[in-house]
């Protein structure tokens, strides 16, 4: 990457070259964000701006707060009783923890895929994908049919399941189930997709499919992915944030974090010396 010729135009800054992206749009603007479970502080004054329509990887050793951080992005951490937080967390300018903001409204904008695939066992493949829309009041059959196909195509699952949509969601293989969960999350058209170690229970082939899928998602979605797998972070993300002991240690371009980290702790972690 660093050896590639860099096409920097010498033209004045005022007229940006077409190839050069404009100012980057920020999805999450997070400032001094701290979070406690009871008396234990899990996140320490995290300040980070997560870019829109990019894949951001969150890495760090177990217990570093990366999952807590991810769950705070759509307020899923509130399912754990006794949490407290300070600081601000905005998504495209909107305060997600503002007064009178319902968690369900936040979660409709910020979808989530979990470590273990969890299709609803009583629902068919099709029903699994559409359950979010149906329960949020969408009745139009045409809309539902269209969204079903779109979501399954986006999740690279359509060709495999289009003839068995009535079969139970749990009849699929592990990797297919996880892609079904991605389709289910995409069906409600969130702005952001959070992924909490989505491949940790999958074999290499299924993992490769999900990583491929993440690449196509970034065209339209902001993706934040927590991963234990350093290669995965290096392969599939644009930005990487390294967390350690509840602190954001370093955040930057993935290529820089993995080849030339600015912090010795980051270097020790990405080179596999601890974690």
């Amino acid at each position: 990457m660093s050896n590639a010729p860099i096409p920097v135009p010498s033209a004045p800054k005022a007229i940006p070259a077409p190839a050069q992206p404009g100012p980057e749009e920020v999805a999450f603007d997070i400032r001094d964000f701290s979070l406690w479970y009871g008396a234990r502080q899990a996140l320490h004054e995290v300040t980070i701006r997560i870019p829109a329509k990019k894949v951001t990887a969150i890495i760090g050793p177990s217990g570093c707060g990366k999952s807590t951080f991810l769950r705070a992005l759509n307020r899923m951490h509130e399912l754990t009783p006794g949490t407290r937080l300070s600081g601000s967390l905005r998504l495209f300018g909107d305060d997600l923890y503002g007064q009178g903001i319902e968690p369900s409204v936040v979660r409709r904008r910020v979808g989530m895929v979990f470590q273990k695939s969890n299709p609803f066992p009583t629902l068919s493949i099709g029903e699994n994908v559409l359950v979010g829309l149906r329960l949020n009041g969408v009745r139009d059959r045409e809309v539902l049919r269209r969204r079903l196909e779109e979501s399954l195509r986006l999740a690279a699952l359509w060709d495999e399941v289009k003839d068995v949509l009535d079969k139970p969601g749990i009849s699929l293989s592990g990797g297919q189930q996880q892609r079904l969960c991605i389709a289910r999350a995409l069906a409600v058209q969130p702005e952001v997709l959070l992924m909490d170690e989505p491949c940790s229970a999958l074999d290499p082939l299924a993992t490769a499919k999900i990583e491929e899928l993440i690449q196509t998602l970034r065209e339209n979605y902001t993706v934040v992915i927590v991963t234990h797998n350093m290669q995965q972070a290096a392969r599939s993300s644009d930005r990487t944030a390294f967390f350690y002991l509840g602190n954001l240690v370093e955040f930057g371009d993935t290529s820089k974090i993995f080849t030339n980290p600015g912090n010795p702790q980051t270097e020790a972690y990405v080179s596999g010396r601890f974690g």
Partner: protein
Amino acid sequence: MTGLLFACAAAVMAPLFLVLYFLLKEGASSIDWNFLTKLPKPTGESGGGMANAIVGTLTLLGMAAVMGVPVGIMGGIYLAEYGSDRGNSWIRFAADVLNGVPSIVWGMVVYLMLVVPFKTFSAYAGGVALGLMMIPLVMRTTEEVLVLVPQSYREAALALGISRWKVIVVIVLRTALKGVVTGVLIALARVAGETAPLLFTALGNNFWNRNLAEPISALPLQIFSYAISPYDDWHRQAWAGALVLMGMILGLNIIVRILSNWRNNG
């Protein structure tokens, strides 16, 4: 040693076969079309039956279910999904104590609550007595099966922006539905044979009940009054009634059995 353990395990089966043996031996010969479709007749007259008691038991069970099932299920949902640990442990304790309240006490309490003020025994009072007994039973089994639903399903549904009560009704309750239905059926089977709570409430009736605000017959009541009578033909009918009641309860348990096998097969 294994032989001793087997003997103890078999000892559980023996009483069931004894019960069935005596019921069939004494009661089967008296069950005919008249028994199932006719009203009781005075002793000495042939062709009398227990149709009103069979219908009465079904009516009382229906009324008990209308009262006990919604309250029990919603209470179970509260225990499993809401509530603080401290408050819930008190509610659980209360429910467990209620499960142990002798059934005649239920009858006496409902007698004071509904029979004395309205100055009449009634089907309503009987239904309420059985319904009150069902609530803690249904509540505890509902709670137990809801707690078994993995947290990951709740998280997945909540992450779709679905409101909490819809998650509970559509995802959690549906996932646990067979277990909840099983709990309801077990509770019904349990109260179906209750006699004591009905003695002071439904009272019994030798004719059809045409008004739920009046006394109603029930199989256990009819069995009781026939069994303590001095007449042989009524004794035979009591055995037949017991056989029908046992058959209903056995039927409920078989349905439970089929349901839980379904659940195990996914």
